[in-house]
């Protein structure tokens, strides 16, 4: 099968986006999108973990006994997430405190396992790695979109910098409190899914 690197990375951004079209990985999208700072770190972590786990699973694909396939994938993913968490605690301490348990929950993020099972187990290492990066990027894109809306409308800031001065601090903007609560992320993701299915009606 011919693989185009460009297709592997760009497809998951729009046409085959893991969140909006495969409907995977929504849970953590809710929790970490109240601030763009946490979004960026989470996005980076998920992208790297998905890419590397796809790479590892692909390397092992010819040696993996069928009976323990899922557990092997789990072990690889779990180890990578623990390592990612350790790096975050060493080099991005403040953000890791804010992300707290959600970094560990990357292990349960369906995207990582989903891509390993759907792609990496049957394909060579380099395309698998690119597929992982692409899907991670697709996830990141949605997270950034949701994060921009939630942080801007929920606290008047982007990356912690005030864009809309809050009324409580002498400005005019009364923040939309619901944007800081989890259901708002559901609504936003639902809206994005609706928009994407309208633009790409032929995608599954």
């Amino acid at each position, binding site marked *: 099968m011919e693989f185009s690197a460009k297709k592997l990375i760009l497809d998951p951004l729009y046409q085959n986006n893991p969140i909006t079209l495969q409907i995977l990985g929504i849970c953590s999208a809710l929790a970490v999108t109240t601030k763009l700072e946490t979004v960026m770190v989470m996005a980076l972590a998920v992208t790297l973990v998905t890419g590397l786990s796809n790479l590892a699973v692909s390397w092992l694909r010819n040696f993996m*006994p069928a009976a323990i396939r899922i557990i092997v994938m789990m*072990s690889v993913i779990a180890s990578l997430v623990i*390592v990612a968490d350790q790096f975050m605690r060493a080099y991005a301490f403040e953000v890791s405190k804010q992300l707290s348990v959600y970094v560990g929950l990357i292990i349960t993020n369906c995207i990582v396992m989903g891509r390993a099972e759907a792609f990496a187990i049957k394909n060579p290492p380099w395309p698998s790695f690119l597929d992982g990066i692409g899907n991670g990027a697709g996830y990141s894109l949605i997270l950034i979109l949701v994060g921009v809306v939630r942080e801007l409308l929920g606290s008047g800031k982007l990356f912690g910098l005030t864009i809309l001065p809050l009324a409580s601090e002498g400005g005019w903007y009364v923040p939309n409190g619901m944007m800081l609560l*989890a259901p708002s992320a559901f609504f936003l993701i639902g809206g994005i899914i609706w928009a994407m299915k309208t633009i790409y009606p032929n995608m599954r």
Partner: protein
Amino acid sequence: MRADSVKRTLTITVLLCFACSLLVATSVVLLRPRQEANKSLDLQKNILQAAGLFTSQHRERDIDGLFSRVEERIVDLATGEMVSGEQVNWQEKVVLNPADDLAKIRERGRYQKIYLVRGEASTDDNGTVEKIILPVYGKGLWSTLYGMVAMAPDGETILGLTFYQHGETPGLGGEVDNPNWKKQWVGKKMDLAKGVSLVKGGVNLAAPGAIHQVDALSGATITSRGVENLINYWLGANGYGKLLAAWEKNHGI
């Protein structure tokens, strides 16, 4: 099933586990020094923030300099007296009577480190103590909240409450970190009978009891109760109560 298929499965399992363990263990061990340094700097920052010395204007590199105003002391919670490091057995725990265990921590150490913050003008032993920072902790909804209360020299006025570690729900219980909520604690006092209470729906600032009250966190009943309980425990008789009483009586440390 072919015999070597089982053997092969087991071999691969063992190799995989070994490889994963090696990866995880190596990263943990190599990164630990940096993580410990981060934690210690973070603790210092938390103490400084609880004292109101580290503001948004400051940077990480300022922490060392600012911390020169802080003196660590050890208090024996059984007597309320300050003791020196050599006398302390850090392993000594006190198991709490369930009726007294407001913060649901079940046991606590007999000794606690507290931090005296001295005035800027003089940093030698004659510098007057402006605040005492008292570490507190207790059960919230999902996690134990770890924080510090800053007390004024009169031993009864709260100057601030900062939680430096917790796992409460972001946006709900997690609002304990919201500066606007934290501001309310400044100037509050413990009521002799009831301590401090977190009031649902907001405090009526005009009412006389308001000095003992702080707004509860909206949508976070259990976290709010947890905060109320842990403050009342630690500032009460079974926590730092004896220390605070002595301080109040002596008009200082």
